[in-house]
């Protein structure tokens, strides 16, 4: 683990990639055909060839018994997201140690999970999958679909932050401020949601959270009875994976 450094470390510019150990893209698909809705979220390895996308889409449609006219839309959606990811790939982005709060607020089948935690997006060895696995194990979550949903949610948030960093870099290059130190530029842009470690931990330098803040950071898992899932929107509920995620701005 990296040591906590007081103050921002010198940023390094790196080719765009997911700031995790495995460069995997989170993909979210939401297709509606003939009143039937298919919603899904999963992780994809961008190094897989495009033929994989086609066979994956067909296979998923077959497994879920969806009609064949789902496949082109699924394909379009997945390929679009992959293309967007690849369009970032040539760019450079800033990597430095930066702690951001990530939030999970998901409902999967009948399990609701809410959690928030701090994540260092400068750590290129971070692993959302491992985090999701250990979280599920520790909280004794029996539904196996919760883990992947958490991992995808984390990845999506990281992806958003990383792409923001790329666009910030781009703007910095274009604007006049690019002539100044890049550190300064990145601070002024949309990176407000990072925490200054020094301020956060206080002058005492203790890593332990204040007790009154414990409740904020406790994960909450709820299992709701499944009768809510039936009803007029039966089709939607069963096929959907509702995931709402927010990155909140903490003002300290």
């Amino acid at each position: 683990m990296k040591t906590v450094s007081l103050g921002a470390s010198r940023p390094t510019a790196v080719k765009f990639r997911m700031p995790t150990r495995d460069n995997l893209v989170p993909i979210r698909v939401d297709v509606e055909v003939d009143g039937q809705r298919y919603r899904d979220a999963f992780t994809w390895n961008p190094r897989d060839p495009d033929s994989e996308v086609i066979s994956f889409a067909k296979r998923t449609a077959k497994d879920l018994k969806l009609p064949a006219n789902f496949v082109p839309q699924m394909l379009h959606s997945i390929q679009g997201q992959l293309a967007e990811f690849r369009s970032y790939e040539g760019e450079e982005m800033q990597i430095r140690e930066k702690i951001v709060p990530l939030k999970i607020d998901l409902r999967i089948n009948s399990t609701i999970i809410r959690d928030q935690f701090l994540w260092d997006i400068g750590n290129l060895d971070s692993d959302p999958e491992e985090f999701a696995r250990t979280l599920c194990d520790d909280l004794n979550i029996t539904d196996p679909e919760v883990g992947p949903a958490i991992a995808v949610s984390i990845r999506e948030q990281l992806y958003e932050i990383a792409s923001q960093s790329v666009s910030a870099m781009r703007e910095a290059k274009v604007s006049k401020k690019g002539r100044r130190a890049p550190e300064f530029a990145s601070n002024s842009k949309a990176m407000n949601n990072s925490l200054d470690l020094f301020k956060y931990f206080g002058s005492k330098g203790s890593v332990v959270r204040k007790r009154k803040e414990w409740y904020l950071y406790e994960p909450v898992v709820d299992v709701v009875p499944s009768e809510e899932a039936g009803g007029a929107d039966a089709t939607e509920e069963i096929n959907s994976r509702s995931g709402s995620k927010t990155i909140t701005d903490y003002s300290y």
Partner: protein
Amino acid sequence: MECVVQGIIETQHVDALEVLLQGLSGVPKERVRVHELCLKSGPNLGVVPSEVRLLCDLAQSTPSCQQYSCRTIRHVGGAMRGAGAEQISVLVRSIVESKASNNVLRYFYGIGYKLDHEVLKGGFAFRFHRGAQITVTVTSVSKMTKLHATNEAVPITPAIQLVEITAPAAADNYNDVVSAVTSFCEYLAPLLHLSKPGNSTGIVPTAGAAAASLMSSGGAWFSYDTIHETERRLMPEFFEGEAAAASGSRGPEAYKYYRDTLVRRFRSRPGRRLTLTEARRGLVGDVGSVRRVFDFLEEWGLINYGASPSGAKQGKDKKEDITAQSQSSLNVGATMPSKLCTGCRTVCGLAYFSCEKADISLCARCYVRANYRPGLTSADFKRIEITEDAKSDWTDKETLHLLEAVLHYGEDWKRVSQHVGSRSEKDCIARFTRLPFGEQFMEPKEDKMQLENDSDFNEESGSEISKRLRLTPLADASNPIMAQVAFLSAIVGSDVAVAAGQAAISAQSHVDISGSETGYSMNITKEEESSCTNGLSANDLLKEASANAQVQLEKEQKAIEQSFSDIVGVQMKDIQDKIRRFEQKELLMENERKQVHYLRELLFSDQLAVVQHQRRPSAVTTESKESKDDEKPKPIISIS
């Protein structure tokens, strides 16, 4: 030392194996009948338990040796250990052979060995040289009901036989021997289930899974605790290069996590096919890797064995036979709507090629690339088109209920599903959106009216697609022809059905029952029908059909007339009843009127009496009054 590869084979395939070995070895087979006593050392003989196998070759014993005067002792040692052992795929173990006399059993008992079990192994063997001196032994193992009673032996596993491929080796040449044995085993691999002895086969929770793992080729090496070399070889992405040291999403841990989860998940419900989507939704990781592990496990039969229509790996045709059998015996519940190619495991497109001999289905690409076993030729494959099957098993009655419910309740799916009965809301919605004539409900049908005067079946079905009460023809699903016609007309649309109905009517009316030649439309139908007549001429068939139709027509007309007259009669009765009731009422009224009249007169006479009392003194006036009153027929009395 000797190299040993063990495997099992189903008894039904033993003949095939024999033929194969015969061809490969070129030597005649030898009968094998061995009485094997397995002795295990007791605790007082040392810390390490050891095992001694006494083999008596009954096939070669002469009648004079009936008393087991000549035995071969084989002391089977443990497997070779060391860095090299993991690399090779066969078991190398130490063997000491010697001859002994028939007292040997008592000797061993004396030093502390105990008889663990004894079996009788019978079968055949082939001894030949192919890179090394190889002996292939195929035996069925039987146990003896009584001690040393070789005549009464009961097979332990009648359906399975044991196969052993052994070759003696020395310390300096065992590598060569191993490679010789391994390469030879490649020939046998399609027929047998080979394993590397020493590896546990893992824990199998249910009988179904046990059968599955026994019958699958991969089941033999699979173990929850270890990663087998086969897996390392075939899934290099997890084990080679940078991934070998990685943890988490890449690397052996990830592979083990995926594999164990998938196998456990399948084995908890062995009859049910585990789909990739379901599996990857429960696994944390990128779907590409999950898919590859899933495919690998499915190919080796560790997943979806016996729960899939397409067989296992393409080259292993024998396993496909097993799959076909087990599938029929396991009675798969899940339906497989589309075809998976056995070769490349992708969904076949519009058509696929199926081979009856080996029960393989290939997609067009694999067929063109000749991606099938050497034993088959392209002629063995038959092209089969894939049609879109109806995805639902909705009966007509249910469809009718659904439509009625939708018309009554609109979008209230809860009530719709209640009305339909056995279908959930989701099913109702899905079915409704998929109905082929769903759109036609929106168009009113006026042209049906002109066809109703003809009471022909085709007519009614052709005009049935419209709103409201016209759905009743669909309800007549008990008549199979009606149901068929209803379905056809639903598929083709109302206009076509109407036209077809009209054409059929006109065609039938053209048929002359007397037997003279018919119009041109008959020729067309005649050609069509000539292909499916069996002895009767088309004309006769048509005549019959038209005669039937006419008879039906008349019947219908009579029925209609009858019903008309019934209706009229009923109306008449109604009217008569009404008249009768009115008459009764009038009677009653008459009676009441009379009563009122009588009461009135009574009252009048009372009044008269009163007046008389009042006018007593004046007798003259009362008399005049009386006479006056008598004249008046109707006195006007105001009683209030």
